């Protein structure tokens, strides 16, 4: 059932670029990344595209397919009509390096700004005890493969790169939530305050829970419902509790 697929791929670099049309052989069961590879092998040997596992586990091959943020290795051709043109463009929220490869260093900068797990005092390796139901909440967030599609789609930064300074994006707000829910994290005992850091250092307030991040997550993590909203609620409990507010006002 092979056919000639129509592909429109963004080619270019940081300075300039354009959409170019190609026709490439397609076979049953293939995914968009297969077409990009065949394009590389037969027509465009210098086509830049990131990929690693080709099984949806590493989060390298992120791009936008017909405008939607997707892993190209998990986007089946059967989603499209055989005569439909499939348009592949680089993630819009990040600066292009070349073709489909963009500069995602923003994410690594933000990752470094979230204080790491703080191991509990007085427990030696091998002495950690946690119940399955208590680790499950954080485990959901640790399914994240760092494809950065949630970052790409988030309207706070997608077309507003000026917000990148103040906003860490759903991926790293979720990282804060994950650590906040870790049963043995001792950040708070050592004077830290993860919900407050989410607000002050990572721009939690800029998120207005439109759930776009959840929609594009290839791991189906409920980023908004299970990470961002609980973090906001925790913050509201702490920060906007009438009694605490009164104390805070008195102290200042």
């Amino acid at each position: 059932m092979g056919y000639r697929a129509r592909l429109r791929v963004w080619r270019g670099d940081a300075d300039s670029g354009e959409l170019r049309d190609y026709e490439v052989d397609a076979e049953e069961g293939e995914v968009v990344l297969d077409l990009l590879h065949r394009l590389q092998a037969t027509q465009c040997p210098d086509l830049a595209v990131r990929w690693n596992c080709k099984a949806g586990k590493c989060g390298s091959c992120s791009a936008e397919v017909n405008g939607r943020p997707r892993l190209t290795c998990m986007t089946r051709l059967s989603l499209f009509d055989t005569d439909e043109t499939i348009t592949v463009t680089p993630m819009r929220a990040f600066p292009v390096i070349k073709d489909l490869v963009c500069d995602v260093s923003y994410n690594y900068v933000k990752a470094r700004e979230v204080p790491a797990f703080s191991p509990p005092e007085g427990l030696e390796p091998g002495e950690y005890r946690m119940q399955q139901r208590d680790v499950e909440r954080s485990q959901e967030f640790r399914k994240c493969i760092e494809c950065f599609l949630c970052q790409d789609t988030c309207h706070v930064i997608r077309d507003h790169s000026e917000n990148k300074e103040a906003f860490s994006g759903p991926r790293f707000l979720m990282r804060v939530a994950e650590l906040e829910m870790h049963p043995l994290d001792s950040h708070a005992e050592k004077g830290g305050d993860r919900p407050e850091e989410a607000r002050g250092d990572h721009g939690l307030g800029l998120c207005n829970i439109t759930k776009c991040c959840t929609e594009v997550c290839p791991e189906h993590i409920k980023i908004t419902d299970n990470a961002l909203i609980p973090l906001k609620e925790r913050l509201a409990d702490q920060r906007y509790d009438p009694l605490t507010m009164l104390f805070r006002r008195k102290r200042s």
Partner: protein
Amino acid sequence: MAEIESHDYDVIVIGAGGAGLRAAIEARSRGLRTAVLCKSLFGKAHTVMAEGGIAAAMGNVNSGDNWQVHFRDTMRGGKFLNNWRMAELHATEAPQRVWELETYGALFDRTTDGRISQRNFGGHEYPRLAHVGDRTGLELIRTLQQQVVSLQQSDHAEHGDYEAGLRVFAEFTVTDLLLDGDRIAGTLGYWRENGRFVRLRAPAVVLATGGIGKSFKVTSNSWEYTGDGHALALRAGARLINMEFVQFHPTGMVWPPSVKGILVTESVRGDGGVLRDASGRRFMFDYIPEVFKESYADSPEEADRWYSDPDDNRRPPELLPRDEVARAINNEVKEGRGTPHGGVYLDVASRLSTEEIMRRLPSMHHQFKELADVDITSERMEVGPTCHYVMGGVEVDPDTAASSVPGLFAAGEVAGGMHGSNRLGGNSLSDLLVFGRRAGAGAAEYVAAARHASPDVSEEVVTEAVNSALAPFEVTDARGQENPYSLQAELQQVMNRLVGIIRDGGEMCAALEQLAEIKQRAARLAVPEGNRHFNPGWHLALDLRNMLAVSECVAAAALRRTESRGGHTRDDHPGMNPKWRGTLLGCELRDGSIEITEHEQPPMREDLLRLFSLEELGKYFTEEELAVVRTPS
């Protein structure tokens, strides 16, 4: 030549998978300035694809487990060709390495009493694999990545610079190890983004580059697995051992064609899944080899009882070591009992409830649903063998991970010896941690001892290395040009067809001839289009040099070993020969060609030999080797 970017470090780690990151954490924690160089983005290394778990005899689920049992299982899995000292260190230190991950923030699945849960796996006597569903590799890589960040945060607090003690060079390819005489003096590499070269000076380099699977057509490995570390070590004068042993994982996807080779975790069988032929028959009972008869059930009834009563029943044969299961599947298909797409059925749907499958195997469910339109909670999977792992690698000192080249260390898949002729599932992630840490420590001690010396190389050497890496741009005569993509495809066909799961002397001679021909043509590899700016065609042309060197090692060593053992099966030499057990094949580079040499295995320490029954040892060892344990101690 213009001045190139250059940096000074104490230790350079090549590779950012489990072994590389653990080595870097160790070196940095001992106060050394450390660089990690990786071909992909940080956090994307191949470790991320490991699914089942980390083998460590913590005894959380069955308290009968301990390091001795783990050691025995590992040696049996490797058909006693393993470096016994590595297997001993691995079994004794693995629990500590897993517990340490919890102090970095890892969240494993738990037992009811709150400890780390452990699951069954092929070749392991007790439930031993610490896991997180079926995405354990992701947890491992993320945990180590976050520990690197944690150390960088401490450096930032102290020095105002995140990268003061530990820097990751992402999307960076190493082209050469630089040598001062016979000692390591650093590396040369380039940024994939812009093709600019970088020279890094350091007295110690840790290779942690993983495997070679991309030389085979059907593989579970990613583009990165081009044998870079193996080839760098060869070119630096180190010896590779055991290169004839390549593991074909029994269960890769076979349909649709575009996903052929993608891994289906062994946990499916560990958790109760069974293999069936086209008619639905559970065929593994026909394939229990003599050496394993005592520990594997010979009827489905006994096998099924084992899950609830492991003490009074023998294990299901689906949980034999990987080499055995892969050969069995291969044979079923060859004899015409396979599925329409040339595999066999892996059935978990009839064995576990939908809820159990969703809880234990979520990413397998996801993978089959999205890529093959198969719902594994109600349908059978089609599976067949796929190239998965190379047991062979750089010969190292077990305790320090040092190679024979001063300053060069190796850990993880790129190191050889630990797994003998066949690796058990789950022993890879633990290997990465145990020997990653030891390599970091070994490098740190080496640097401390060599503190006064600062090895370096001349500008000419660097210039020559740069020119050699740029050579593909110089092949401009269109008539003689070779395309890297086509040449890679040819190489993969040759290895898959002629040096695959079942081998034969004649076929391997043919393979060596064809490899020689490809190697000749590879001198005319050209960059078909574009410049040095993120150019995959150029990157592949450079990777191909490594793939070719390593493929030649595999084929030449496989031809020399005239027996069948573990990941090396020969139609023309079907039996296992005790004489060969004591012999390791080495690969060295002499005047541009691969030379195979034979080396005697160091005899196993007596107290370790005594962990096995004489009867069992007799199946593997020569009478002379056993003389020492014939007399009671």
